[in-house]
């Protein structure tokens, strides 16, 4: 499969997954570019050990998480703040897939999701936004079904905790 076909088939997937991580169009576009530059570099060496879609998902997740880390590092350096509690991604909430009437609730929800550990955030996004099965998520993250179920349960518990704490403030 040539590069253009890979792009046509997977660009929407990459862009939408990136959007769930950064919740704004500009950053999601930058991540999409980064992902496809990596795909371009590596697609000739892709041996098909896993499905192409799984491979693209993995690159997208890693690139999104790296992007967030880099952005947080820059922000920390700018504010000279070494406090680890400020690690969560705080971007502008401008998610184009969210309806205006849900915007406030979604902004609050994503603010909580951004505070979850990386693996919990990823499992939540893949299961609940991308509507993948636990089996598909297990394959993408190279984990067992049991592990995915356990991460998902922890994500739900933590999410509820963060939201309750935020409401109590």
């Amino acid at each position, binding site marked *: 499969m040539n590069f*253009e076909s890979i*792009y046509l088939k997977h*660009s*929407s997937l*990459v*862009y*939408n997954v990136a*959007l*769930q991580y950064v919740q704004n169009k500009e950053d*999601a*576009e930058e991540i*999409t*570019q980064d992902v*496809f*530059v990596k795909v*371009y570099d590596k697609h000739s060496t892709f041996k098909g050990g896993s499905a192409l879609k799984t491979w693209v998902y993995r690159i997208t997740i890693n690139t999104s998480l790296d992007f967030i880390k880099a952005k947080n590092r820059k922000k920390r350096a700018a504010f000279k703040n070494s406090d680890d509690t400020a690690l969560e991604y705080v971007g502008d909430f401008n*998610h*184009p*897939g*969210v*309806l205006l009437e*849900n915007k406030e*609730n*979604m902004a609050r*929800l994503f603010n*909580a999701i951004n505070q979850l550990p990386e693996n919990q955030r990823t499992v*939540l*996004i893949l299961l*609940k*936004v991308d*509507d993948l099965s636990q089996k598909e998520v297990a394959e993408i993250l190279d984990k067992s079904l049991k592990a995915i179920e356990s991460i998902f349960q922890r*994500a*739900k518990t933590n*999410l*509820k905790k963060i*939201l309750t704490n935020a409401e109590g403030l």
Partner: protein
Amino acid sequence: MKEKTSNKHMERPEDLLKNIQKVQPDPKLYAAIKQRIKNREVETTPWSLLRIAAILCGLLLCVEAYVIMTPTTVDTDATIAIVSVNSNTIYDDN
């Protein structure tokens, strides 16, 4: 009714995520990616030349260091004379 929905979302907040709609990326994005790949390929040429030059310099330094550090196997009179002179020794000519 609205309160009921809100309570339901507090119980299972993750269910709200199902309301997110899929968005198509900007059609110009592909052109931007191709341009980035092209720019990078142009940029990489001088870097690869520099890398080769750096490797050659490193190799030359290694060879030079090897030549200097390796002890001479044949001790001629001249080399013995050079080696045995201790600059800290004060010689009394008398």
